[in-house]
């Protein structure tokens, strides 16, 4: 599979602050890629370099096979971009802005008419005739997503596309991004884990300018989920929990009120060997024992230290 985005040792330094530090990112064409990180991790800086708005201090950026530093209009013609706070000409209406954006791409009138109608509908702005200056932040954000799609881009890059939206607006934008699966590569930054978990197939986590992890989301959850074991017994759960908590391979035992316990372990193999023996030793009835699944939120908190999100 070819890469829609590829960065090598991407580094950006502002004065003494290292905003990005040797980031190697690879986004496969056709994927929906979630770029996660706490506020200030460097997500916007990365997107600014991917779109050619800022230059790397070191390293390279390739988008759709072209080096961004020498990318011309032909590359930009295949990209859709929504910045974190989109700036519009406030004297225009939504339709005028979409037509203007389409004009910048040189889209033929007939095609543009059709797309403008569809995208206004998608943004929920079909009947809104007021100027953009009077729009709420959510309306601007929806218009921002619509304008990023005007050229039916091969690569869609969005910076925090759902952050200003209410739950319904968020759902609509996520549904729309999901509907692009297989047709367009979608790369979006966010700090909302639920959004990523819902639609992304691949995720990268950035923290303090460093890429902590990049993997398919299922693999990531499985990788970290393997360090969790769920045990359920019919009785004697308190005694078992105390024993497990005291074991050297156990790092945390969480109870859910009845006989189920979620055990975070440092050594999964040792835990899987020891827990059945502990159950048998106490004569308890084992109802369930399985590798636990770790949610993305837990993976995220574990990887970035849980200080911020």
């Amino acid at each position, binding site marked *: 599979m070819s890469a829609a985005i590829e960065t090598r040792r991407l580094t950006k330094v502002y004065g003494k602050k290292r905003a990005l530090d040797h980031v190697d990112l690879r986004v496969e064409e056709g994927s929906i890629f979630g770029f996660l990180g706490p506020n200030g991790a460097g997500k916007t800086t990365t997107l*600014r370099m991917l*779109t*050619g*708005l*800022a*230059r790397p201090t070191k390293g390279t950026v390739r988008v759709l096979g072209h080096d961004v530093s020498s990318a*011309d*209009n*032909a590359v*930009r*013609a295949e*990209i859709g*971009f929504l*910045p974190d*706070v*989109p*700036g*519009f*000409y406030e*004297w225009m209406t939504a339709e005028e802005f979409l037509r*203007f*954006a389409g*004009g*910048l*791409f*040189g889209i033929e009138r007939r095609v543009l008419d059709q797309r403008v109608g569809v995208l206004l509908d998608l943004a929920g702005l079909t009947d809104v005739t007021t100027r953009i200056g009077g729009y709420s932040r959510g309306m601007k954000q929806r218009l*921002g997503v619509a*304008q990023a799609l005007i*050229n039916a881009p091969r690569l869609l890059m969005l910076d925090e596309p759902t952050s200003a939206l209410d739950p319904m607006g968020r759902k609509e934008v996520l549904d729309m991004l999901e509907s692009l699966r297989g047709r367009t590569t979608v790369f979006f930054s966010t700090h909302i884990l639920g959004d990523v978990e819902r639609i992304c197939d691949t995720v990268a986590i950035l923290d303090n300018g460093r890429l902590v992890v990049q993997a398919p989301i299922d693999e990531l959850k499985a990788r970290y989920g393997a360090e969790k074991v769920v045990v359920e017994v019919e009785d004697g759960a308190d005694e078992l929990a105390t024993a497990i908590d005291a074991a050297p391979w156990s790092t945390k035992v969480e109870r859910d009120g009845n006989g189920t316990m979620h055990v975070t372990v440092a050594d999964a193999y040792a835990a899987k060997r020891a827990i059945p023996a502990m159950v048998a030793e106490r004569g308890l009835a084992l109802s369930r024992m399985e590798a636990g699944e770790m949610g993305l939120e837990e993976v995220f908190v574990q990887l970035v230290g849980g200080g911020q999100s």
Partner: protein
Amino acid sequence: MSGFAAFARKEATEIVRTWRVWVLPGMLLFFALSGPLMAKFTPEIIKAVGGEQLAGMMAALPKPTYLDAYGQWTKNLTQIALFAIIIIYGGLVSAERKSGTAILVLTKPVSRVGFVIAKATVHAAFLAVTMVVGTLVTWGGTALVFGTAPGRSLWLASLAWLGLGVLFLGIMTLLSTLLDSQAGAAGIGLGVFALMSIAAMWEPLGKYSPAALGGQSMMLAAGKDAAILWPVVTALVFAVTLVLVAALVFRTKEL
């Protein structure tokens, strides 16, 4: 339509749909309408309100002619209208950078060089159209008020001013690319204006460089001869160069 043409069209529409259409054209139209009337009636107004002594002094002055109306027009152009250009265009590029609109445009197939050139070209055309309309109104108004209004000196004076206006548009394009602050750019622009006024006192500059244009515009309006070809040509060459430098600077800016 190419990205450049679509952006230039946006720029032109923006002039018509925002405050820009009122400020400079409104100002020039006011000068054009009021100039001939002020020239004709100022002595009489002073006589009426200034008492006998002032009336005696005014009587000693020659009767106002169409040249006084032309003088009024060019004086307003070379001072107030030029200041307005400096202040208005202090944010020509930086305002789009600060509002974030430049980001949405420049991540589409519009080059940064094209972005700057389109802006400067459209506003130079706007300036030219505004000047032509203003001059036509002054011309007609002067003919109505004074009964005669030879065109040559008025149009040459306005042309000299247009050269100066386009030069300052070029200066402000560069300053608004270099500086984020509109007020800062305008302040430096006014400084350049003051320096040019001083430079015009040195004869070679006062004859061939754009620094000559302010004085020459006034001379032409007073019915005297002035060779404006070289100053206008040098002003246009400087303006184009400044816009190209601005475009190259903008290409290296981070947004």
